[in-house]
């Protein structure tokens, strides 16, 4: 029998894996993929809680999170392509202009 704790545990673990991935990886596109993992972890938590509560408000929130994630994917990848055109690399350890 699957309880709410199971799904929330998976969501927590998935979010942490995504967060560690953003910290560990230098490739901007892989960092973006780890951000998508974090968004999906939040979606899983919302869907599990929606099933627990019994209404569909959580699933509506997931719908909008997916919409925002898709819009973010388009714009974020366009930014990455622009950065690549300027300096031929998506290595985030090499783009240091905004660093202190």
């Amino acid at each position, binding site marked *: 029998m699957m309880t709410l*704790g199971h799904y929330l545990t998976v969501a927590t673990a998935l979010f*942490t*894996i995504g967060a*560690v991935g953003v910290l560990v990886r230098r490739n901007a596109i892989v960092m973006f*993929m780890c951000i998508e993992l974090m968004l999906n972890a939040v979606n899983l938590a919302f869907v599990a809680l929606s099933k627990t509560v*019994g*209404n569909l408000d959580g699933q509506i929130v997931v719908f*909008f999170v*997916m919409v925002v994630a898709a819009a973010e994917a388009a714009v974020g990848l366009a930014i990455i*392509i622009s950065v690549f055109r300027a300096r031929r690399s998506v290595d985030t350890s090499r783009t240091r202009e905004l660093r202190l």
Partner: protein
Amino acid sequence: MDPSIILSAIVLLSAVAVVALRNPIHSALNLVVAMLGLAGIYAMLGAHFLAAVQVILYAGAVVVLILFVLMLLNLKVEQASPRDLVIQGLAVVSGVSFLAVAIPSVAQRFGSFPSARDVFVAARGPEVEGTVKNIGALLYDEYLLPFEVASVLIMAALVGAVLLGKRRRDTAK
């Protein structure tokens, strides 16, 4: 064995593979596996519409876009330098230690909730299924304003992506 456990294991293993693999194309393919596993979990939780949208939108549009960009940029495999190993080790250690604290507390706090509707007093009534009809009724009735704002957001993202993707022909490169 409950299919949810198998799907959860698939999702978590492929998520670790997304983070750990050196080749970004391999990471993207494992991301597809994770998205599909999550779609299966949504379907088992009764969110049929969201399972379909997860496959269509995430696995079918976002990751395909990522793969297009990866193949367009034609990147080399990421090389590890010793300077990064300290940061990577610290990140992994902090992530694992956070999980060691968070997972037992989450599992113990929510583990006895097979269906905890009695805890939430604002429940709407009998349990509704996440079918297209029910989601549509809610989306066009109570959440109409966020729905329209989301369409404006998509339009803005479209314009922004096209503008950022245009090759500048007026400056001398």
